[in-house]
């Protein structure tokens, strides 16, 4: 009887440890696998060459990732510029001013925004944002655009990132102790001054971190962006022109990657690039957040 109990104990113990180790090792395994797949490409070109070259002709064996990297950064930055102020303001309103009733309404709103699949945002983007860019925004800036552009990508991406960043900001603002607010108020600050000097200032590392994590999230988002961004290989500074971010590159060409030599290696290298960049950003900013939470 006892031995049976012992055996089942051993088994479940091993299972638990194995599961946890597996999950923790996952990024390492993914990294190694992608590295092996991209090794052929890396053996022929240097890393610097791959990243900084704009020469993209897979048929001729030229793999310059610069247009894709700039597109990715451009779309990400645009989305950040749109999303960050909204998140900051909404986060402050929800934690400092909002009534209980509004908070009760906002929780499911944020949940659903966070839960809507990428493809739904994509469909909405195609239906609304793309024509809006083409017919309203482009004429406003005296330019022409098909609507499938970096700007549209930025707008759609911004909306997708809002619930993600906002959730983190709310959590961070809620950790500011009430006593701190009271202290500031009793020194003669108005409510808003207290919010400004105590809540926002005290949450500085947390705010920066959630912004950073929001950027990372935007950087890796695939389908919605791909549906509205136009997907043309060009390094452009004009947001009304089409771009071609890294994730879209991978997703768009998986079909033919086995028919052109080195193409699969190049796409896996793109995935590796995404993984490394995003994981690094996550590790750095999560570290900040963990530090502040322990305090």
């Amino acid at each position, binding site marked *: 009887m006892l031995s049976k109990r012992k055996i089942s104990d051993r088994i479940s113990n091993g299972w638990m440890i194995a599961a946890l180790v597996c999950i923790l090792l996952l990024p390492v395994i993914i990294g190694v696998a992608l590295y092996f797949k991209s090794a052929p490409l890396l053996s022929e070109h240097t890393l610097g060459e791959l990243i900084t070259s704009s020469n993209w002709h897979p048929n001729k064996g030229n793999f310059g990732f610069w247009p894709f990297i700039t597109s990715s950064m451009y779309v990400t930055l645009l989305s950040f510029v749109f999303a960050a102020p909204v998140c900051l303001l909404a986060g402050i309103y929800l934690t400092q001013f909002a009534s209980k009733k509004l908070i009760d309404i906002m929780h499911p709103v944020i949940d659903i925004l966070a839960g809507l699949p990428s493809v739904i945002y994509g469909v909405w983007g195609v239906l609304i944002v793309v024509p809006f860019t083409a017919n309203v925004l482009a004429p406003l800036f005296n330019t022409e655009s098909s609507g499938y552009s970096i700007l549209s990508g930025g707008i759609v991406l911004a909306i997708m990132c809002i619930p993600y960043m906002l959730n983190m900001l709310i959590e961070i603002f809620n950790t500011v102790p009430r006593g*701190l607010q*009271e202290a500031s*108020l*009793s*020194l*003669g600050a108005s409510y808003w001054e207290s919010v400004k*000097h*105590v809540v926002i200032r005290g949450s500085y590392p947390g705010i920066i971190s959630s912004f950073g994590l929001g950027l990372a999230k935007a950087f890796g988002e695939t389908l919605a962006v791909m549906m509205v961004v136009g997907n043309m290989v060009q390094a452009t500074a004009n947001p009304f022109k089409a771009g071609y971010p890294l994730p879209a590159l991978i997703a768009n060409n998986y079909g033919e990657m086995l028919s052109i030599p080195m193409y699969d290696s190049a796409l896996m290298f793109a995935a590796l690039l995404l993984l490394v960049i995003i994981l690094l950003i996550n590790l750095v900013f999560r570290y900040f957040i963990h530090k502040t939470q322990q305090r």
Partner: protein
Amino acid sequence: MELVQAKVMTPSPLKATRHEKASVPSAISIKNLDVHAPGHHILKNINLEIPKNKVTVLLGPSGCGKTTLLKSLNRLTDLYKELNVTGTINIDGDDILNTRQNVADLRQKMGLLSQRPYPLPMSIYKNVAYGLRLKGIKDKKLIAHNIEKNLREVGLWDEVKDRLNTPANNLSIGQQQRLCLARGLAVKPLIILADEPTSALDPMSSSTIEKLFREIKSHYTIVLVTHILRQAKRLADNVVFMYYGEIIEQGAPDDIFKNPKTEKLRQYMLEGN
């Protein structure tokens, strides 16, 4: 600033009647104060005169409404939307619950010391300068002078003068609480509200804070919430014993502690010792 002085000059009718009754002038006069939370009557018809430049101790078991009473005095109860506060609280000739005066100016008449120190997320220097700047003082020399004076007053100057620009969070918890006191004194309040200010401190820091209170009490009206009987005996000029939202007994510490009139206080003193 001008506004404050103007108010002081005009005695309200209430203030006049108060003077006739009390031998010692009151700094705070509370009449028919009720605080309701949904489903809970926190303070029940509180009537209380708090004498000027004395230490008044609010004593009682936890949950009896001491902290709520204290927070009503500088209207921090405004923060808790679920609370409904009615009645009058007269401070400095002004019914603060129904005043038209700016609440921020009003709160500068009262310094707050909370259960644990809450240094603002900035440097030591800026912590003390915070209230001064809010008052509209811009002269850097004047601010620097005030900071030194107030830090000296709480005996912190020598400990921190070389690191005024480091974050206040780095101080020990006892130093933090003294910094909070200095910060509160800097805005030149009339009243100091202290909510169990030593409960998070070690015995050494506690006695430093108590010593400071004794030193400054001739210049300030101090309202101290505590549940430590001995602290009340050491510091109080006037003791108010509260029980479930009501004032049960009040008087000079010698009278009240030697001859408690009610069974509840007697009980409380037995358990406290």
